[in-house]
């Protein structure tokens, strides 16, 4: 007996569904490269892409060095946040879990501030690594605190530990930036999630981690299904619950850590997209994970393109757009959708 059974008809619809999402993502990515706060004709974009060399014109530089890395980063970070959210919701059995609640953003921020004030380092390219380390450290700390005690890292203890660590690290960051204006100014770049100002070096820096994490995450479908039935049942089915949890947390740490390091805290994607995926394909994590992986970058890129078009020649950070669009969508899901428990 398998842990969950899927009606064959449903699976038959879900495979083409994935293909449709893939096509939609391709269209959105195309929009992200061709549209933006600068007006560049389609033919010029295509010429720049076709030549694949920067001919020195501003339009070509903007296309190749700004928009292409931005779009690729949006796809990877979006996918990572969506999957990280889905895995976290599954492993903690908490429908409101996302990376932010587990201390990732506060961990990244406190390490960046530490790098600025104590080590005196400067520059977005360097902060990425501190943010990454901080995000992972925070998640490890949350997991370690939650693991204390006999029953291990239970969902409720994870939620409490996440809230406590977030609050603790947050007050450390506040304490430092209150007395150090320099740190505050530098941190501003990280306070609102954004895809702006991130170029090839940041993309190539985090891409290996994101890709490895995404591939690894797909292996968790079956064990998350088991956990969804409750720990005792999962154990009864022969699952090593503690190991699954630790491994899942490791993957989330890499995905959310690298995403936050590259783009700052991006809200709602990790929280909402898994619910949409669950709404489309039911409770089977073997489908929820790939659906989240395609849905999330679509949401992120659409929000980014909107933010780049509404206030030209300025741009709105994608974090702001997601906050504005995401809140009503989430309320709608909670109110009218059947928000199945994770």
């Amino acid at each position, binding site marked *: 007996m398998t842990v969950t059974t899927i009606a064959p008809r449903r699976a038959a619809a879900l495979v083409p569904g994935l293909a449709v999402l893939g096509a939609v993502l391709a269209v959105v990515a195309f929009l992200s490269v061709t549209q933006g706060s600068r007006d560049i004709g389609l033919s010029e974009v295509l010429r720049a892409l076709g030549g694949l060399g920067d001919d020195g014109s501003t339009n070509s530089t903007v296309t190749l060095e700004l928009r292409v890395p931005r779009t690729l980063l949006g796809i990877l970070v979006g996918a990572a946040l969506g999957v990280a959210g889905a895995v976290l919701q599954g492993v903690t059995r908490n429908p409101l879990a996302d990376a932010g609640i587990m201390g990732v953003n506060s961990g990244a921020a406190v390490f960046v501030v530490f790098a600025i004030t104590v080590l005196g380092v400067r520059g977005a390219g360097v902060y990425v690594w501190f943010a990454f380390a901080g995000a992972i450290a925070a998640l490890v700390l949350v997991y370690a605190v939650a693991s204390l005690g006999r029953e291990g890292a239970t969902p409720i203890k994870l939620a409490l530990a996440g809230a406590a660590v977030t609050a603790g690290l947050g007050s450390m960051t506040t304490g430092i930036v209150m007395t150090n204006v320099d740190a505050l100014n530098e941190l501003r770049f990280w306070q609102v999630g954004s895809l702006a100002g991130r170029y090839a070096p940041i993309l190539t820096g985090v891409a290996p981690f994101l890709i490895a994490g995404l591939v690894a995450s797909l292996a968790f479908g079956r064990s998350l299904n088991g956990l969804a039935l409750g720990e005792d049942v999962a154990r009864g089915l022969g699952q090593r619950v503690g190991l699954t949890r630790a491994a899942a947390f490791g993957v989330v740490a890499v995905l959310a850590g690298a995403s936050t390091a590259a783009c700052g805290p991006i809200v709602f994607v990790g929280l909402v997209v898994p619910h949409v995926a669950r709404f489309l394909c039911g409770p089977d994590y073997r489908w929820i994970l790939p659906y989240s992986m395609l849905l999330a970058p679509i949401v992120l890129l659409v929000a980014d393109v909107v933010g780049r078009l509404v206030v*030209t020649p300025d*741009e709105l950070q994608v974090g702001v757009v997601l906050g504005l669009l995401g809140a009503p969508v989430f309320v709608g899901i909670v109110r009218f959708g059947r928000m199945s428990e994770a």
Partner: protein
Amino acid sequence: MRAWRTAVAVSVLSVALAGCGSGDTPGTSSGQSAAPAGPWTFTDGSGQVVKADKTPTRIIAHAGEAAALMSFGIKPVGIYADESVKTDPNLKNLDLTGIEILGEEWGKIDVEKAASLRPDLIVADWWPAEKAHSGLEEGVDEKSKKLAELAPVAGATQGKSILELANGYETLAKSLGAKVDDPKFAANKTRFDASVATFKQAVAAKPGLTVLAMSPADDKIYVANPEYAPELLDLQSFGLKVMNPDSPDKAFPYWENLSWENSDKYQPDLILWDGRAFKPDSNAEWGKKQPTWFKIKAAKENAVVAWPAYWMHTYGDFATELDKLTTAVKSANENIGS
């Protein structure tokens, strides 16, 4: 009835506050010796006439305003700044011994310590757009606003000209007893007049030269709107063509915000770079990390100079900064941007 009770409470409080400071020696730390006895009046930047029975001698001043008073030999008893007094461009070269530092962060003033100094005047710029004095604006700590209850607040008006601001503080210093015509104080003004003359000359020699005041940041570029930058308005009045951005941010009209995709929207011949962040290697550094910074031709040609943004209060500082700008204008190529 209720109003009456409040009035009693306020007067009891002020007696208590006055009592706090009674152990101090009478004010001797202010520099002027021949303060006229008074009564004293001064027309504040807000248009209100500020009056006192005696000429104030124990002054608490905001950073740049303190520098302005000190340039005429009037030493305040206390200073509150928006950043560390070691880095504040107005204060960093001044001798502050004997002056209490009451704040080194925007919006935060140690009012208790201020009360213990028993000030008889608070000197702070008047901001017409915000309808408030420096340090007492919307958004500061509520506790900081109590500073205004310790003594009358007066200052020159910010907004349209550093020259007017410096003038205003000369008038204020004179009213407080400073001998503003004493050669050692008047020298700054003489130097300033000479600097303006050479600046005008340099600008006139390059009639085609356009400049743009900018502040690049990691996620976008800020282009200054001269309408809200008094020193840029002064430079315009001296003949320099400081470009006006065509669509400043509606909520915060100090700047037009450009995404990095639109870095080349304006093509000046010379970039005035926000002096709060400018370092000698800034241009090379930004050219390296922002793919489109060098799409501004002036940046590519390294035609950049520091812009003394939003801080100056004195003839002396303005003269020093003008001389640097004159050098930059002289070596600028007026055909880069066209």
